[in-house]
Every structure is written in C-alpha cells, then in structure tokens.
C-alpha cells in the first residue's frame, strides 16, 4: 500500500532505560527503578543533589560501575540492543566508539605521564585501526575542533601543563573523536572556574548539534541544566520523581521535591546570610516525611561544648 504515514513518526530513542536498579551487596538498593528515554540528537538533563543516583545511572549505561556496585534489574537499550545482556567484550567495543563519557575532574582524568596528543590519538588507533602517525594528525585536528589554540604544540604537552578548562576540552575531544551516538557528561563543568564553564558548555552544545550526538547531561546545577537541556529528569534518592520539558519544569514544577529544589535557588537581590551546611531552604519547603536529611557537620576542638542553637 502506498501513501505517506498520517503524521511524523517519532524516531526510535537512542537510549531507552527501563526500570534500572542498582544495588550494593545484598538488600542495599541505590537506584529503585529508573526509566527514561533519550531521542537522537537530544540533550537530556538529569538533575538532583549529591547521592541522588544520577552519576551511577550514567556509569551503568557505560558499564563502568565499580564493584561492589552492580545492576540488579531493568534494561538499558542502546540503539535497539539491551547492553546489559551483552558480554564484556561486546560492551567494551561500544565504549568510546558509539557511546562516550566526560567526567567531572579534568585534573585527574588524564594520564599524567602521557602527552595529550597521544591520549587523543589512542582513540583512533583502537577504534579506527589507524597507525600512530595518522592518528596523531587526527588528534591535532580534534584539538582544533575543540578550539584549543596552537593545537600542534598542545598535542605535545602533558596534562599538568594545561589549565582546567583546556583539559576538559581535551576530554571532550577524546570523547567525540569517534563521533559517538551518545555522550554522557557527568558534571562536566563543576570543577571548572565560573569564567570557563560557559565556554565548555557552549562547545559541547555546538559539537553535539553538529554531529547529531545525543547528550545525557548529569548535573546538580540548575543553571547548567536550564541552558543546555531540552528535557529534564529530576532524581531524588534513587528515584526519577519528575520529567518534563525544561521550560515547563521551571515554570510549573509538579513534584514537591522539584518545587523545593527550585525554591532553594539563591535569588537575585535576596539577602541571604552566608552559612555552612545543607540547603536549609529546602528544609523549610519540603517536609521531613517527603525526604530525610542528616545533621550538618562542623569542626570543633575537643573539650569545647557548643550550646544547642548557639
């Protein structure tokens, strides 16, 4: 039968996570069944506090969970294949090639004893079968694409000779070298200077748009999420509690936790006393039943007693 389909067919998601559970040992569950989809070329954000489980979600997609953490249930379908059912070798082949990850600490994420150029070139040697001289040339090109000045010189430098922002650009170059279908960025700018953050984020957005790479952006920073993502998932203590288009989320948060999270943002013009400890505003807005919290920690000398409430 001929005839065009009645409407636009939604593309198959690049990543489809269903009911993912992650636990430690027996009976200790960290992720209680998380489900979300990422469409091709889309930038999807995962936001939440530390400990909400957003990082381990990303790691489990890549297959980089460290013992004793392990996936205890659910499926992770990447380009139509449940990667959790694949053998180690097959999974490894996908890493770096079809799915890539950028981490939070550019300082320590690169091998201190190898030049930056070599670490990028390695991608081409392993995944594209090039020889080293070819790969090195491609590495210089990669440095150019992430806007590192004087790429040929830089390729011969060591990681400790580069600034944090440049190191992160190198990480991005490595991650996108083989033009993967999915890039997972775990707090890519948290460890960077504020002045550098915008540039790196822009770079990610531009490059991924150009290649149609989907991005899973994990962050606790609402500003980053707001700028980069089309859709957002909110995580709280191992559960995905809300998922909406970014704009809609900010304008009309549905879940109490999301509301609390948004309310805890420092607002322009408000006079908030500087203090240590957790987000106290969150406490006022979200009740204890809806979430628990730990006491703040302070350093006191031994033998000195603090009055409660002092």
């Amino acid at each position: 039968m001929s005839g065009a389909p009645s409407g636009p067919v939604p593309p198959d998601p690049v990543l489809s996570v269903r009911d993912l559970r992650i636990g430690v040992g027996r009976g200790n569950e960290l992720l209680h069944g998380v489900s979300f989809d990422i469409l091709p070329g889309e930038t999807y954000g995962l936001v939440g506090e530390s400990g909400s489980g957003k990082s381990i979600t990303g790691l489990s997609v890549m297959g980089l969970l460290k013992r004793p953490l392990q996936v205890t249930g659910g499926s992770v379908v990447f380009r139509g294949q449940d990667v959790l059912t694949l053998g180690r070798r097959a999974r490894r082949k996908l890493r770096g090639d079809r799915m890539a990850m950028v981490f939070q600490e550019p300082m320590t994420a690169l091998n201190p004893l190898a030049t930056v150029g070599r670490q990028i070139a390695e991608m081409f040697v392993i995944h594209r079968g090039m020889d080293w001289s070819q790969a090195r040339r491609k590495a210089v090109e990669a440095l150019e694409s992430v806007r590192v000045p004087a790429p040929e010189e830089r390729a011969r430098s060591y990681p400790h000779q580069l600034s944090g922002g440049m190191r992160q650009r190198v990480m991005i170059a490595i991650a996108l070298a083989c033009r993967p279908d999915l890039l997972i960025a775990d707090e890519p700018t948290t460890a960077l200077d504020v002045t550098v953050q915008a540039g790196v984020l822009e770079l990610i957005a531009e490059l991924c748009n150009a290649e149609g790479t989907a991005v899973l952006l994990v962050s606790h920073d609402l500003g980053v999420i707001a700028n980069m993502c089309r859709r957002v998932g909110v995580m709280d203590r191992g559960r995905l509690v809300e998922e909406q288009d970014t704009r809609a989320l900010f304008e009309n948060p549905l879940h109490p936790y999301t509301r609390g999270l948004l309310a805890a943002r420092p607002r322009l013009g408000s006079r908030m006393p500087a203090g240590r400890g957790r987000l106290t505003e969150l406490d006022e807005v979200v009740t204890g039943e809806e979430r628990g919290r730990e006491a703040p920690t302070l350093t006191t000398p031994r033998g000195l007693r603090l009055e409660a409430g002092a």
Partner: protein
Amino acid sequence: MLRFILRRMLQMIPTLLAVVLIIFVIFSVVPGSFITSLMSEGRNVMNADVLAHLNEQFGLDKPLPVRLWDYLWGLAHFDLGISYRTRSPVWDVIEPRLWPSVKLALAAMGFAAVVGIPLGFLAALKPGSLFDTGTMMMAVSGLSLPEFWFGLLLMYVFALHLGLLPSFGYQAGSIRYIILPAVALGVSPMALLARTTRAGVLDVMNADFVRTARAKGLSEPRLVRTHVTRNVLVLVLTTLGLQVGSLMGQAIVIEKLFSWPGIGSLLVDSVSTRDIPVVQGTVIVIVLWFLVINMLVDVAYAAIDPRIKVT
C-alpha cells in the same frame, strides 16, 4: 639536568658532614681506645712512656676539636686516616672490600626485583584472590624472617645437605658463591617490593585516569600495559632505591655469615678490634652509598615523570 644533579650532590654534603661529626663524637668518648685494648689483651705490659708515645703517634693526645678538624681536613683531601691495626691507610683497607659488597647488594636487589615486582603486580590484578592472599602472607613472612637465620638454613640445605652450592667464600667472576648470600639478603627487599608494587597497582587501578581509559574502550591488557605500568613504576622506584641504599647496612650480618669479604664484615671486625679510623671510614662509605643512590633515584624520577621540574 646537569644542574639538578650538581645541586643534589651539593645537598649531600651537609648530611655527610653531620654524619661524620656524630660518628666522630661517639667514638671520642670510647672509654677504651685501641691502645688500651692492646694492653688489656695482655700482650705487652706497657709502661706509661710507650703508651704516651703511641698516643702521640696516632694523634690521640690532641683535644677533640683539633682531632675533628684534622679528620675533616683529611677528608677533604680524600684521606681517611691510618688504620690502628695495620698501620696502612684506611682507604687501602676499605677499597678491596668495596666491589664485593656492591656486587652482593646489586645481586640481592636483582633477585628481589625480578621476583617481587611481578608477584606484587599479579597479586594486585586479582585482589582478594587466593593468589593475592598467599602472596601477601608470603610477603609478611619474608619481612619477618631474620635473614641470617634464613641464610643459615639455606646453607644447611643447599651447601651441606645437597652440596650444590658453596657455603662461604668469594670468587671473583664466579656466580656460584654469590647465589646463597644474595638470596638470603634479597628476601626482605623482595617481600617489601611485592607489597609496595601491589599497593601501587591498586592505587593506580583505582585512579580516575584509568576510569577514563576504560571509558575510551581500552581492553584491560592494553590498559595495564600503556597506562598503568609507567605510573606504577614511578611509585615503586622510591622503594627500590631506598632498599638498594640501605642494603649495604643490612648486608653486615649476611657478609659475616657467609664470610663474604665486603664492607659489612669489615665493619664488624674493626668494631671488635676497636680500629676506630677504619670504623669511621666504613660508616662514611656506607652513608655515602646511601646518599648517592638516593640522588640517582631522584634523577631517575625526574627523567620519567614529566611533572617534576628539573631546574
């Protein structure tokens, strides 16, 4: 790089001076000197004149600071003094003993490295396994073993019982004589190297950049080969160097046990005969060895690790 080496060599001098000072002071308060120990052995009944003459001959009648200054002055001219016992220059007594000690130290270290480092490596790649536990138990045992007892046992088994290897003596150029003492001396460093290598590999395997390498899709063997090994080497190098540096001191007992004509046995002999100049000279040589090895380790570090600035 040359300036680096030069600077480190200059830094050795104050330490060396302090050591000389300490040793000198310690031995100046010796209640019995060489002379009086001759007397007490009952060889001659010396009268006061002969005693005074001997004291003068050896310069022992001068006050302490003068003696110290004379000694230091001599050191600056590479003159270590005269042996009380043989009346020949101390250096002549020490010099033929140097090479045997160095040989023994290097052989022991070679054994320790060749066995210990791979063991530690393999143990770390399978942490918690039977191999790992077994290796680490063996390492702790190796560190707890009195090496002279172990040497004695080796002697018993291999030399006396099986007759395979000679139990004492030294023959330049022959390998048979060095095997037992080298193994006995090398057990303890081997155990330490196994443990340090294992800890180093575990540290590196848990490092962020290894996680990045995995994220890049590297296979484990390739990862270990290209990213882990060099980083571990940097960590292990310190231990290796320290061990070589201190082996000269630890070799004392082994040398005595196996009648190995090295610096260690010289030290023991000259201590029992109270031949102070030789004792001082030997200690200086041992300390110098330690300092030089340390400096070489630093140089090697600077060569391997690009993070170290070599100015």
